[in-house]
C-alpha cells in the first residue's frame, strides 16, 4: 500500500508473534521430551531475534512496515505496525529472552533448587516462556488499542504461571499480590478502551490520533489519565510501584530476570506510544515529572535499605523506571530519544544483573548480604560478571548507563524549566545512590571476609555451580551491555530518528492510512 513497501519485508512483521505461539504449541505437545522442547524453543527465539534484526534494518532504511491482519482494512481489521521504536524494542526483547532461556537450560535438571521446588525443567516452563515472548511482541507491534490489551493479557497470563512455578509458599504469597495488581491494571486499561471507543468510535491508534484531537479538552484529559494510570501500574511508576519489589524476588532467577527486563518496559513502551501518538499536547508534563522524580528517589532509597540482592535489584529496577518516564514527560525529541535509548540499555543491564544474582545464589548458596562474603577471591569470574553491569547501571562513564543519563539530562536542560532542573538534580542523586547500593553488594558479597565459614558454604553448593551453561549466556549479556556503549552513536542515531517520527506523528498515521485517516 505505502510506496516504499516491500511485500517480502512486511511479511516478516507477524512472525515475532506467530513463531513463538507455534513453538508454544509444539513444546506442549512434546512436554515429556525435554531435549526436543529445548531445541524448539531455542530455534524459535533465535529465529525471532533474526527476524527482529531484519525488521529493525527495514524500518530504519525502508520505512515503517505495516500489515493488515487477515486482509481486513483498518479500522475494522487489526493493523500491525513496525516502526523504528517497535523494531528496536523487538530486537532487545528477543535478545534478552533468548539469553535467559539459554541460562535456564544451562541450569540443568539437577540444579539445587529443582528438587525442592521444581524449577526450570518443568514441562510447562518452555511453552510459557514462548507465550510470554509472543505477548510482549504483540504489544510492541500492534497498531490497535484493543489488540494491545490482548497482548498484555497474553504476557500477564504467562507471567502468572512463571511467577508461581512450583507453588511454594513464598511464590504463592507473592503471586497473589502480583496477580491482583496486574488484573486491576488491565481492568483500568480495559475501562479506558471502552471510554475511548464511546468517545471516538474507534480503537485504531492511527485513526484515534486524529479523532482524539477533536474531542473537548476535559474528555481528552480524562482518557489520557485513565490510560496512563493503567500503564503506570504495569511500569511500576512511583505511587503504583509497591507491588514490584514484593513479588519479583521470590521467582526463579531466569524468571525474575526476564520479568525485570521486559514486563515493566512493556508498560513504558505503551506510555511512550500513547503519549506521543494520542496525547501529544503535554498537559500532564508536570505530573509525570513529579512522578518520575519520586519513582527515582523512593525506589533507590528502598534499594539502599535492602539486605537481599534480588530485592535490592528490584528496587533499582523501580528507581530507573523514573529515568524513562523523565524522558517521556519532557515530550521533546531529545527526551524521547534518550528515553528509548535508556529502555534498550536498561532491559539488557537489569536482566544481566538478575542473572548474575542467580549465579551468586548458585555459588554462594544465598542472595542475602548477611551471609555472602569473599566471592571476589573464591569466584573472581563472578566478580567480573557482576562488576561490569553494576557500574553500567550506576552510570559510570564510558558505559551506556552514563550515556543514557547524560542524554536525559541534556534533554532536561533544553527544556529549561525549574522543575526540569530539579529532575536533573534528582537523577544525579539517584545515580550516586545506585552506585552506593551496588557497591554495598560489592563490598559485602565480594570483598569482605566470609561471615560463614567457607566449608559450610561449599557444602551447600554444587561443584558445577558456575558451569559454562549458565556462565556463557550471562557473559554474553554482559558483552551485549558493553556493546551498547560501543555502538551508542549509531544507536542514538536510530533512537533520534525514531523520536522525531514519534513527535511528528504523521509518519505513523500515514503508514497506516496513506491517504489520511478516515
Amino acid at each position, binding site marked *: 500500500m505505502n510506496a516504499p513497501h516491500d511485500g517480502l519485508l512486511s511479511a516478516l512483521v507477524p512472525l515475532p508473534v506467530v513463531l513463538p505461539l507455534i513453538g508454544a504449541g509444539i513444546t506442549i505437545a512434546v512436554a515429556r521430551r525435554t531435549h526436543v522442547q529445548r531445541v524448539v524453543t531455542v530455534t524459535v527465539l533465535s529465529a525471532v531475534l533474526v527476524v527482529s534484526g531484519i525488521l529493525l534494518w527495514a524500518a530504519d532504511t525502508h520505512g515503517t512496515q505495516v500489515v493488515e491482519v487477515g486482509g481486513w482494512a483498518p479500522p475494522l481489521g487489526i493493523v500491525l505496525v513496525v516502526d523504528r521504536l517497535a523494531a528496536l524494542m523487538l530486537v532487545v526483547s528477543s535478545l534478552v529472552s533468548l539469553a535467559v532461556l539459554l541460562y535456564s537450560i544451562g541450569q540443568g535438571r539437577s540444579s539445587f533448587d529443582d528438587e525442592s521446588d521444581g524449577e526450570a525443567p518443568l514441562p510447562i516452563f518452555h511453552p510459557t516462556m514462548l507465550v510470554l515472548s509472543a505477548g510482549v511482541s504483540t504489544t510492541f507491534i500492534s497498531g490497535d488499542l484493543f489488540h494491545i490489551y490482548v497482548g498484555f493479557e497474553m504476557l500477564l497470563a504467562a507471567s502468572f504461571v512463571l511467577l508461581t512455578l512450583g507453588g511454594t509458599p513464598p511464590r504463592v*504469597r507473592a503471586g497473589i499480590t502480583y496477580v491482583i495488581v496486574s*488484573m486491576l491494571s488491565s481492568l483500568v486499561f480495559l475501562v479506558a478502551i471502552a471510554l475511548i471507543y464511546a468517545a471516538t468510535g474507534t480503537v485504531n491508534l492511527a485513526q484515534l490520533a486524529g479523532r482524539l484531537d477533536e474531542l473537548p479538552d476535559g474528555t481528552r484529559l480524562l482518557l489520557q489519565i485513565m490510560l496512563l494510570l493503567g500503564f503506570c501500574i504495569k511500569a511500576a511508576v512511583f505511587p503504583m510501584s509497591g507491588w514490584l519489589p514484593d513479588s519479583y524476588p521470590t521467582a526463579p532467577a531466569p524468571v525474575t530476570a526476564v520479568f525485570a527486563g521486559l514486563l515493566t518496559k512493556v508498560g513504558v513502551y505503551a506510555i511512550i506510544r500513547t503519549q506521543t501518538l494520542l496525547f501529544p499536547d503535554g498537559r500532564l508534563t508536570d505530573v509525570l515529572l513529579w512522578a518520575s522524580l519520586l519513582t527515582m528517589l523512593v525506589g533507590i532509597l528502598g534499594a539502599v535499605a535492602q539486605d537481599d540482592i534480588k*530485592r535490592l535489584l528490584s528496587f533499582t529496577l523501580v528507581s530507573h523506571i523514573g529515568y524513562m518516564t523523565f524522558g517521556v514527560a519532557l515530550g521533546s525529541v531529545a527526551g524521547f530519544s534518550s528515553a528509548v535509548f535508556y529502555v534498550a540499555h536498561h532491559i539488557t543491564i537489569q536482566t544481566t544483573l538478575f542473572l548474575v544474582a542467580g549465579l551468586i545464589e548458585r555459588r554462594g548458596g544465598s542472595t542475602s548480604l548477611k551471609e555472602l562474603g569473599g566471592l571476589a577471591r573464591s569466584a573472581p569470574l563472578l566478580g567480573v560478571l557482576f562488576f561490569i553491569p553494576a557500574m553500567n547501571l550506576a552510570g559510570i562513564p564510558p558505559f551506556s548507563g552514563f550515556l543514557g543519563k547524560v542524554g536525559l539530562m541534556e534533554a532536561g536542560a533544553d527544556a529549561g524549566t525549574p522543575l526540569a532542573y530539579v529532575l536533573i538534580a534528582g537523577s544525579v542523586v539517584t545515580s550516586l545512590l545506585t552506585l552506593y547500593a551496588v557497591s554495598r553488594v560489592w563490598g559485602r558479597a565480594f570483598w569482605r571476609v566470609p561471615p560463614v565459614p567457607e566449608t559450610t558454604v561449599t557444602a551447600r553448593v554444587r561443584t558445577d555451580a558456575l558451569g559454562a551453561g549458565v556462565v556463557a549466556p550471562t557473559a554474553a549479556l554482559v558483552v551485549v551491555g558493553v556493546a551498547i556503549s560501543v555502538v551508542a552513536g549509531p544507536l542514538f542515531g536510530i533512537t533520534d530518528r525514531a523520536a522525531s517520527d514519534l513527535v511528528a506523528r504523521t509518519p505513523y498515521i500515514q503508514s497506516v492510512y496513506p491517504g489520511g485517516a478516515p
Partner: protein
Amino acid sequence: MMVPNLVLCLLVGVLFASGVYLLLARSIVRALMGLLLLGNGANILFLVASGPAGRAPIVGASDVTDMSDPLPQAMVLTAIVISLGMTAFVLALAHRSWQLSHHDVMEDDPEDYRITIKAERNDMSDSDFSQAEPRSEPTDFEGDPGSTG
C-alpha cells in the same frame, strides 16, 4: 450524538462501587469477587459505548442504520474469555494458598514486615554505619574490614 442508556450507566456505577469495596478486602476470594464485578462493570461499559441497541448486525437482514455496533460486542466477548481464564487461575492460586496456610488472607511481605519492626524499634543493626554491638542478630558482621560500601 449518542445518548447513553441511563440504566446501564447506573449499573456500571453500582458494579464498580461494589467491586472496589470487595477488592479492598484482605481475603483473596473477596478480592477476586471484586475484580469480577469490576470486570463485568467494564463489559457493560462497552455495551454503553456501542450505543443504543439495534438489530442483529448481519448484512442483508436489516438496514445498516438499524444495526447495533458489532465491534464492542466482539471486544466484550474477548474480555469475557480472558477474565474466565484469569478467574480459573486465581481460584487455583487461592486454593493452593488455602492448602498451604489454611487462611484465605493475603499475607504481608515478610521482608517489609521485618524492616517495619526494625524501624519501629529504631534498630540500626542492619545499617552500614552502625558500629554498635549488633542487637538482634548475632550473625551480623558489622565493623568487619571492608564491610562498608
